[in-house]
């Protein structure tokens, strides 16, 4: 679908009255939130004309199931508490904002649930429930509704919530617990550095099998690369996520970190380690592919993913923080309107399906 027929398919917002004093009686945005209506602010790759916001959102939730289940297995009650708090606060905040704005309730579209769940998956298992609720409310209220609600937000709300928590509570946000199943290996048994933190500050590389299955310390959802890959591939196959974004993001990360690794294998970690550690998999498949905050064009998607991958490696290798997935995606979110503007297809029928 091209820009032209996309815009034709969308009901246009009523034209702003020429005389600003002559305001329409009803808020024109009000009807944009109706859950039964077709997607209003469309972005690629919506090749299915029938795709509705709820349908997309519930599929994303389904794709998150393997990761969530593994988080519950590894971190047990800690994970239950954080996931329930995060999702619950997101839903309550969404309802309250709907009420204050006087618009239809938007919980059935599933977007608030996703934001809550994604935020929970980026949090360390030992994080306080009060902090979790705060981040979740921030994500919904400031991250989404301050910008005008679903479809108008510039930044991925869950990542914005996490950025707020990272800036507010830097120590608890970087204090990690071993998964219960891996505790036997740890002498202290309470806190440990993540594989990325270990490499950055102590120069210790971690075992790849642990990174794949998730038997490592880290956030709820960033431990097992395999579980995320299963969900992510499901999204790609069902075409609810643009395959170009994760591919270019992971590819750029692999290539750029590979160059540094070839230059000096002792001071820089291997590109394989880079791919499977930290929140990269979760970020690449579930955060960067957020339809609202990533470019709509195919070329834009390549630029978006490549840019995020390069920023990520720079932060990981040279920044003050061990992990850079969150900031790299948020930075590219900010560039998305610009990318959309400059990658607009020039002629009809250019986009491949």
């Amino acid at each position, binding site marked *: 679908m091209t820009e032209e027929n996309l815009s034709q398919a969308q009901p246009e917002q009523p034209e702003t009255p020429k005389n600003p004093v002559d305001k329409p*009686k009803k*808020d024109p945005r009000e009807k944009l939130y109706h859950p039964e209506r077709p997607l209003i602010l469309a972005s690629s790759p919506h090749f299915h004309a029938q795709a509705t916001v709820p349908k997309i959102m519930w599929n994303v939730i389904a794709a998150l199931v393997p990761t969530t289940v593994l988080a519950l297995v590894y971190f047990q009650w800690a994970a239950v508490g954080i996931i329930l708090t995060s999702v619950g606060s997101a839903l309550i905040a969404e309802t309250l904002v709907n009420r204050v704005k006087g618009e239809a309730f938007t919980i059935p579209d599933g977007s608030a649930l996703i934001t809550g769940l994604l935020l929970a998956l980026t949090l360390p298992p030992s994080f306080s429930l009060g902090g979790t609720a705060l981040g979740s409310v921030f994500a919904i209220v400031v991250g989404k509704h301050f910008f005008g609600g679903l479809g108008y937000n510039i930044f991925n709300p869950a990542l914005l919530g996490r950025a707020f928590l990272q800036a507010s509570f830097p120590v608890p946000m970087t204090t990690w617990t071993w998964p219960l199943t891996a505790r036997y290996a740890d002498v202290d048994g309470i806190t440990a550095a993540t594989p990325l933190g270990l490499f950055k500050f102590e120069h210790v590389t971690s075992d790849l099998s642990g990174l794949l299955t998730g038997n490592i310390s880290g956030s709820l959802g960033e431990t097992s690369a395999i579980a995320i890959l299963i969900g992510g591939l499901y999204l790609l196959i069902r075409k609810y996520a643009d395959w170009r974004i994760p591919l270019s993001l992971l590819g750029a990360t692999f290539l750029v970190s590979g160059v540094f690794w070839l230059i000096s294998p002792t001071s820089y970690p291997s590109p394989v380690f880079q791919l499977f550690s930290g929140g990269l998999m979760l970020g690449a498949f579930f955060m960067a592919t957020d339809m609202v905050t990533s470019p709509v064009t195919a070329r834009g998607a390549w630029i978006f993913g490549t840019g995020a991958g390069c920023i990520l490696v720079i932060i990981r290798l040279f920044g003050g923080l061990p992990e850079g997935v969150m900031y790299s995606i948020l930075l590219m979110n900010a560039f998305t309107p610009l990318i959309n503007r400059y990658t607009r297809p020039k002629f009809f029928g250019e986009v491949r399906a």
Partner: protein
Amino acid sequence: MSSSLSLKAEFIKGLWKENPVMASLLGLCPTLAVTNASMNGLAMGLATTFVLLSSSLMISALRNFIPHQVRIAGYIVIIATFVTVADRFLAAYFPAISATLGPYIPLIVVNCIILGRQEAFSSRNGIGRSLLDSLGMGVGFIMVLVVLGSIRELLGSGSIFGFAILGDWFTPWMVMILPPGAFLTLGILIALANWYNDPSRSKARKVVS
């Protein structure tokens, strides 16, 4: 050119309707930079008000004497003089505050509120009126800085003016005393003010209830 408001209105307009920060979005650099605690906001507000009042006095007194072509140069020299006076005063009598505010006191010289009021008001009005205008603007500026500083200090350190308000159960939100906290809080405050001032709000309320 001179203002036709009543003397009382001349003072009051700076508090809310023409508040330099909330309505004109002037002087945002110190507003964002030093308000990580109530005390810093108050000190910055007072120093700015002092500079505003004394330069208004000078400039309205000299308004018919300074040639139009060199007025800005003249204003800047006058403002810079009083800023230096304020800076040295704080360094001599309140060294702790002077150390905390650091370069932001000398930077009052480039605060748009001050030059703006001189150009827009004091150069066209008498001494009394100009002083009232500056006082209103200054008090309006202090109010915003103290409110902003208090919100940020409360959430970021659990205290207001150094007095612990929130108990040990409260984990400070570090972000509030960092620069992003300033942008967030000021943005939310201005949004609330605009919502309050919005004439169509009475309609919006009906939809809610």
